[in-house]
């Protein structure tokens, strides 16, 4: 093992090409993962921020908030289900917002949520009518604490009284106000979608039961088929495009990991071929195949670790220089660590290509030429 480390230390040039290629692959892997995380985070923050475990849509809504419609009667039947601890209405509307200091046609796309159960990061008390909390990313659009923005074609004024993080929805910044504010904004700007008093788009439900799926089924039974109840993770997966994004990105990430495996495999297979004479001598003086292969494996892991460290540094730098809200890229520790782990696994598997060659090295080849 010391021999392998000494070679890395004393002949760094020999491993420079592989390290550079793997660093680029590591960066690609981390950027892809960061883009996926950024896209998913930007689409699902509003749902992930919820404190309820279940979300109740109307059965005909196809699990979409804007198509969902919960009447007071349905809400009452949900509240009556055993095990249900709290039921809170929620509604949303997507609009263009006019912000002071921007042109009249320079609209900021926002989603206004009306809520009863405060999402994570907000105080329990719902803001007064006409006021709302804003997602922190909207600060980059010029929205500040205390600024009044005008929503939709009716230019309904809403005053921003604070900010919360990681609550974006469908790639847009969000505003969080009372259900009364939401109803008023909806009625003024989307008269056709007007929600009457007591009518919500969906319900957030907190339950005490351990079996949340059973509780969801009980709610749908109690509502006589008028509802479709999902857990929050199910609701996130049901958001348009989210699972497709994840599938596509994960396939690209998988292919990138396979490419890393092939690069490591080919590089170390080549190095092993170059070293066959040396391995023959080392075997002749008593090195086992296991010791020699462990050296190859160690070198592959060290090279991959250095490449991953370069990838991590470059990803963090990228995350720091990308303006907020411009590209949906986040460099999370879990993504950077998982990408590094994938690369290390790929490196270990790639090395397996060399194992056969190491095993086949004949120590007798180190000595003489005739029989």
């Amino acid at each position, binding site marked *: 093992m010391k021999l392998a480390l000494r070679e890395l230390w004393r002949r760094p040039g020999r491993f420079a090409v592989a390290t550079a290629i793997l660093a680029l692959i590591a960066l690609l892997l981390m950027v892809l993962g960061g883009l996926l995380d950024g896209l998913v985070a930007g689409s699902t923050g509003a749902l992930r921020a919820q404190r309820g475990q279940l979300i109740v849509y109307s059965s005909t809504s196809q699990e979409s908030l804007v198509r969902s419609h919960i009447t007071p009667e349905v809400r009452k039947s949900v509240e009556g289900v055993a095990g249900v601890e709290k039921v809170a209405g929620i509604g949303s509307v997507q609009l263009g917002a006019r912000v002071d200091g921007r042109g009249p046609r320079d609209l900021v796309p926002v989603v206004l949520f009306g809520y009863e159960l405060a999402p994570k990061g907000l105080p329990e008390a719902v803001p007064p009518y006409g006021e709302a909390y804003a997602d922190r990313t909207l600060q980059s659009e010029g929205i500040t604490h205390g600024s009044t923005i005008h929503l939709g074609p009716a230019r309904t004024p809403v005053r921003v009284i604070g900010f919360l993080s990681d609550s974006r929805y469908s790639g847009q910044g969000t505003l969080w106000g009372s259900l009364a504010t939401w109803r008023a904004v909806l009625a003024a700007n989307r008269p056709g979608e007007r929600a009457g008093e007591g009518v919500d788009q969906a319900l957030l439900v907190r339950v005490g039961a351990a079996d949340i799926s059973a509780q969801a089924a009980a709610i749908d039974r109690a509502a006589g088929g008028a509802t479709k109840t999902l857990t929050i993770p199910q609701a996130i997966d049901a958001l348009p495009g989210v699972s497709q994004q994840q599938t596509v990105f994960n396939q690209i990430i998988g292919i990138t990991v396979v490419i890393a495996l092939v690069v490591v495999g080919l590089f170390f297979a080549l190095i092993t071929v170059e070293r066959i*004479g040396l391995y023959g001598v080392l075997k002749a003086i008593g090195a086992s195949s296991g010791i020699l292969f462990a050296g190859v494996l160690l070198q592959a892991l060290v090279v991959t670790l250095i490449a991953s460290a370069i990838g991590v540094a470059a990803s963090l730098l990228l995350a720091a220089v990308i303006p907020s809200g411009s590209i949906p890229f986040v460099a999370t520790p879990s993504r950077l660590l998982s990408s590094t782990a994938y690369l290390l696994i790929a490196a270990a598997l790639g090395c397996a290509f060399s194992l056969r060659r190491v095993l086949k090295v004949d120590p007798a080849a180190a*000595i003489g030429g005739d029989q």
Partner: protein
Amino acid sequence: MSTTATDLALRLERVSKIYKVGDDEVIALDHVDLTVGADEVIALVGPSGSGKTTLCSIAGGLLTATDGSVVVGGQDISRYSSKELTRFRRDSVGFVFQTVNLVPFLSARENLIVVDEIGPRTGRRARERADQLLGELGLAQRSGNVPAQLSGGERQRVAIGRALMNEPRLVLFDEPTSALDTQLGDQVVKLIRQEMKSRGTAAIIVTHDERITHYADRLARIVDGRISDPGYKGEDAHQPG
């Protein structure tokens, strides 16, 4: 003078080696008997393809004999598994190869220590032994140099040091002078003899170079896989058995 089995560095009894080449069989060694005393230096000579290297490889545990008995330093290695042979080579024999074959990115000192590093035991003892051997071989001032910074003779001396690191009973030299000029070749063979005798270590020197035989205790001539001439050199030579 009689020599017991445990005094012998090597005893080959009716050793044969047959290679399969397609459907044909090539007899590389044909019922060879050879004994090497504890501090004997033997020159093994013969034409190309005569079986010198095969004999040397079998004695060093690099190859297994098809038939016969191979005892090195009291260990019968004839039926050793591949794993046992690896351990045997690490612990009990030394090799000096034709092309020296030092690890190019290691210093002279590290090329000696590597013998311990490929095994389970490493540490201060190995470093001390490497320093001691390099001093004895006149390389104390060159211990930090890599092979490319050493002369041919110095590299050969490092290779001899490496072969002696595990305090072997038997060292096998494969054409040790083939890459050296006449003067340097003479110096190296003198050194080999001197080092072997001072340590009580036996050596087999495979060579085409008849001049080397002057420095050997005994000459063993091999032709067509048979040792035809045990080659007792003279009254002052050590002749076991």
